[in-house]
């Protein structure tokens, strides 16, 4: 995590994103990814974020989470700082993952807390250890 753009040079860089993206200066401090100079450049990361965002719809919300974590600096800084597309995909990924997490965790919590009182004998059919028992999925030990 770099410091917030209190430094005036950061603001100068942010006003001209296109010129910045063309040359890779190792001393630059505003890399779009958490890995800094080891990560992707800004131009690559737009494509990358788009791909991850799209594949997230194939029931793969963890890709959205990875998108958010990987482009954390993009999420943290004001929208004018990086390429607008990049920011858009990352923010959408964040929203998507939040929605998914809320829905899934509320369902899982309802299932585990409500238990058999709430679901009756369906619970016994749905709970994972019974399913594993039924199909013999626990090969280990």
């Amino acid at each position, binding site marked *: 995590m770099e410091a917030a753009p209190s430094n005036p040079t950061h603001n100068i860089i942010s006003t001209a994103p296109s010129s910045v993206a063309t040359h890779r200066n*190792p*001393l630059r*401090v505003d890399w779009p*990814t*958490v*890995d*800094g*100079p*080891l*990560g*992707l450049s800004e131009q*690559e*990361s737009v494509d*990358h974020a788009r791909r*991850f965002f799209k594949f997230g719809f194939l*029931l*793969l*919300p*963890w*890709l959205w989470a*990875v998108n958010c*974590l*990987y482009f954390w600096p993009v999420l943290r800084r004001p929208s004018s700082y990086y390429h607008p597309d990049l920011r858009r995909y990352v923010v959408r990924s964040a929203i998507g993952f939040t929605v998914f997490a809320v829905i*899934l965790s509320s*369902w*899982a919590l309802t*299932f*585990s807390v409500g*238990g058999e009182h709430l679901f009756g004998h369906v619970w016994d059919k*749905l*709970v*994972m*250890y019974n*399913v*594993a*028992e039924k199909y013999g*999925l*626990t*090969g*280990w*030990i």
Partner: protein
Amino acid sequence: MDGGSILETIGVEIIGVMSPVSICMFLVVLIVYTLSSPSSSDNQQVIRTAANLIYLESSSDTTAQKLEGALLNAVVFVVLITLVTFLLVILYYYRFTNFLKYYIRFSAFFVLGSMGGSIILTLIQHFNIPIDSITFCLLLFNFTILGVISVFSQGVPILLNQMYMVALGIIVAAWFTKLPEWTTWVVLVALALYDLVAVLAPGGPLKMLVELASSRDEELPALVYEARPNVSSRSGSRGPNLGLLLAGFSDGDPIELRVMSSSENVVQNGRVVSEMRSESEEIDDVREVEIEGEMLPLMGSSSSNNERERPVVNEDIRESNESDRARVLEREIEEEEERGRGIKLGLGDFVFYSVLVGRAAMYDLMTVYACYLAIISGLGCTLILLAVCRHALPALPISIALGVIFYFLTRLLMEPFVVGTSTNLLMF
């Protein structure tokens, strides 16, 4: 320049490799320790894998039978691994790199999905976690796919890649602990020997693979844990890389020596400096000039003039020293970048370290501590050797040798002693 500076330079790297190994071993021990109940160890059904093709161990066999069978198993396993490694080298040599990558992705998918899923299911069953099947399938699917993506892709966080490498190591090691006991130990020793030969011998498959990959300037087409490379934005001059360790040592001493001796010089001459600049290609050359500079006062010259000149000259020398040092460092860094980024440790090393510790966990926790310490110290030795040798080294032999020795020492000597003394209230 002694002791402390080795640790300062090399410490980050050592920790960067040792902490994932420790995490891997710790989790394997935890899984094995929680899931292997003592009652199931006797009547548990042994599955036939590549590591025990010939002989299925049963507890009723005699020791000679077990040893013979275990040796046969180990030989077959090592031969199989050698064949597969040669196949991999051949495929890589003829540039089937994409095939290899997809194959490794597929195997990662298989390991994470089925083997890992099975372990997770066992854990769920063991702890009676009331999770529904839909959520479980969704999460396992996500886990697996993300793992497959992160294996060879550039576009995932390095931390995620490392976590998945450790996860793969844990899963495979947890499965390997299912091997019968004698076979496990013999296979471990055999693999350590195989590793030694395959990496160091002239025609060894792993050596060929590493050389091929470095000559093509590509990543190794295998599952390899890579420590986070140190591209420090704060201090550019101090590249704490293992390769740089040597550079720092061989170059650092003369430079310091030189700066000190030149500041002690009473008289200096402008001519020396110019000579020095022209000749400062190599440190030895500079040293010769240094000697010349030290001899110069004996020749005699007007002292007032030299007094005035001295600080300037000293600064010049320092400047040239700095540039010299910077040049050497630059060269070293370039070499370093040619060689690769961080320290790499094959996933097999992770797996077999953890297998050893996991097998030790089936006996007692005391053997686990002994084996852990032995393996970590062996890994440290290997890393220091790596700093000296500066080419690919086998990570298994030292650690496995120490680990096996310490396991049997602890089991045969230390445990009876400690248990005896403590049950007779002589200790604790």
